[in-house]
């Protein structure tokens, strides 16, 4: 595949197609709609399933159904639509069927607006819906990374029979950037050991999240938690820049992390020992690496396009060792590098005026 200039939403759609998604179900919502529209065109061309659902509630339950049949299935939406899917998420996680969901986040709460935002962090990373579990959440910061993580999302979903979110925002969804698609993956049958395909020559397969007996449900939860522990231990991903000798590390995911990169470079140019840490997995949060950094740096500056959500994970990872401060913009306002630079500079000055940390 050649490098092409692609819009994030379209890239996400096409990457899913390359990854062998066999069924897409969705409902229009800005700033995600191009993803759905691309699927509306491409999936029928390829003889795959596309249904514009009557709502996000229906869409996620269609995904649930298709995934029960053992195929790669997905939906995409934006914040209010994601809220409507919470019950479905919980069923999917409890049933351990692999599903992929793209959230192109927008300004909230409520109807809010259609500008980029990162304020679904909590509802995606804590427990999407009721019950005890975390979905895997992958946050790209570029169109290329969106493509790469889309493929990874399906692989992780299948590997762990789990729900995986690709967490973008309006900016990534709307941005055009050169990027390269992976080769088209052949469609293979998966999950014959549990998928619903008809009980032909075998005992019936059943997919349910019902466990009326409390000890049985506790056992299910223990199994889930054991799986999540493995994911937690093995799937933490992050990227960093200029952290080697950094005294101050800026932490930001997705768009905020990428914008911060420019601010960090600027600060470096002005002689400040500043680095950038960008979580790629929001859950599992890359706390191992961040904890290690906490031993080295004097402070973290968390930058988010919300009022401070991931900061909790940073504080947990930092474990009270170093101060964690925050810079955020909300409601669809995208921070510019200049303002992040100012926040870095102010904090850095404060650090300089304090006794150095051993």
């Amino acid at each position, binding site marked *: 595949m050649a490098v092409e*200039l692609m819009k994030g939403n379209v890239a996400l759609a096409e990457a899913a197609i390359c990854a062998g998604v066999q069924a897409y179900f969705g409902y229009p919502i800005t700033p995600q709609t191009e993803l759905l529209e691309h699927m509306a065109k491409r999936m029928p061309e390829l003889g795959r399933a596309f249904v514009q659902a009557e709502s996000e509630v229906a869409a996620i339950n269609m995904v649930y159904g298709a995934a029960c049949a053992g195929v790669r299935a997905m939906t995409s939406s934006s914040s209010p639509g994601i809220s409507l899917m919470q019950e479905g998420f919980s069923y999917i996680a409890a049933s351990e069927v692999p599903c992929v969901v793209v959230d192109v986040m927008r300004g909230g709460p409520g109807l809010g607006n259609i500008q980029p935002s990162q304020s679904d962090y909590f509802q995606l990373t804590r427990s999407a819906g009721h019950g005890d579990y975390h979905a895997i959440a992958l946050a790209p910061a570029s169109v290329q990374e969106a493509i790469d993580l889309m493929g990874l999302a399906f692989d992780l979903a299948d590997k762990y029979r789990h729900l995986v979110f690709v967490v973008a925002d309006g900016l990534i969804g*709307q941005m*055009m950037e*050169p990027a390269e698609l992976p080769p088209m993956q052949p469609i293979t049958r998966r999950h014959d050991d549990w998928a619903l395909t008809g009980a032909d020559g075998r005992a019936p397969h059943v997919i349910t999240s019902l466990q009326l007996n409390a000890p049985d449900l506790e056992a299910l939860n223990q199994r889930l938690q054991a799986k999540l522990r493995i994911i937690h231990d093995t799937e933490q991903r992050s990227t960093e820049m200029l952290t080697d000798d950094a005294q101050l590390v800026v932490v930001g995911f997705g768009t905020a992390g990428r914008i911060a990169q420019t601010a960090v*470079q600027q600060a470096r140019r002005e002689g400040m020992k500043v680095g950038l840490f960008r979580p790629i997995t929001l859950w599992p949060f890359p706390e191992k690496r961040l904890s290690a950094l906490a031993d080295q740096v004097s402070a973290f500056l968390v930058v988010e396009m919300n009022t401070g959500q991931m900061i909790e994970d940073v504080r947990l990872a930092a474990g009270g060792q170093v101060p964690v401060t925050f810079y955020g913009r909300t409601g669809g306002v995208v921070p510019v*590098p200049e303002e992040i630079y100012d926040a870095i500079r102010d904090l850095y000055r404060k650090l300089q005026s304090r006794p150095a940390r051993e």
Partner: protein
Amino acid sequence: MQEEIIFAGFGGQGVLFAGQLLAYTALAEGKHVTWIPSYGPEMRGGTANCTVVVSDEPIGSPVTKHPSIAVVFNNPSLEKYEELVKPGGLLVVNQSLITIETHRTDITIVRIPATALASEMGDVRLTNMLLFSAMLAQRPVVSLETAQEVLLEKLGARKAEMHALNLAALARGWELGREATPASESA
């Protein structure tokens, strides 16, 4: 080298396409590039603008407070972006529709009567091409030649006449851009 260019105007003036042409051209020249629209609340009409970052290095932020170049198609865009252009930057002004005065002296300002010229050339939709190449004339972010090639490719199966018109507009804009006495210098 990194340039941050903002194209700004009304919906329907070809603002987003001008930005995309720049992005595609930059890609053709092997540069790093990002293009983002600011998608307004309203369906259509209203404001349209986009930010293009072109760089030799991988690009960090695709947004900026202070672009190095702004190409403004109408009054509200001038009002908003004149202030923001980086010192030493470039402001390209659609003279035909912009009635208010500029006042920055620390940037290059060129005025092109683009809408009028486009009408003259027979299609008001050429406005964006005129402004685009005028900008290139002042700041060769990408080369005009590549831009011409890319444009033809994007126009694709359309009539030859269209191709010719667009190329003519690019050429005319380039000329005007080169000839233009920057306001900052004349001031």
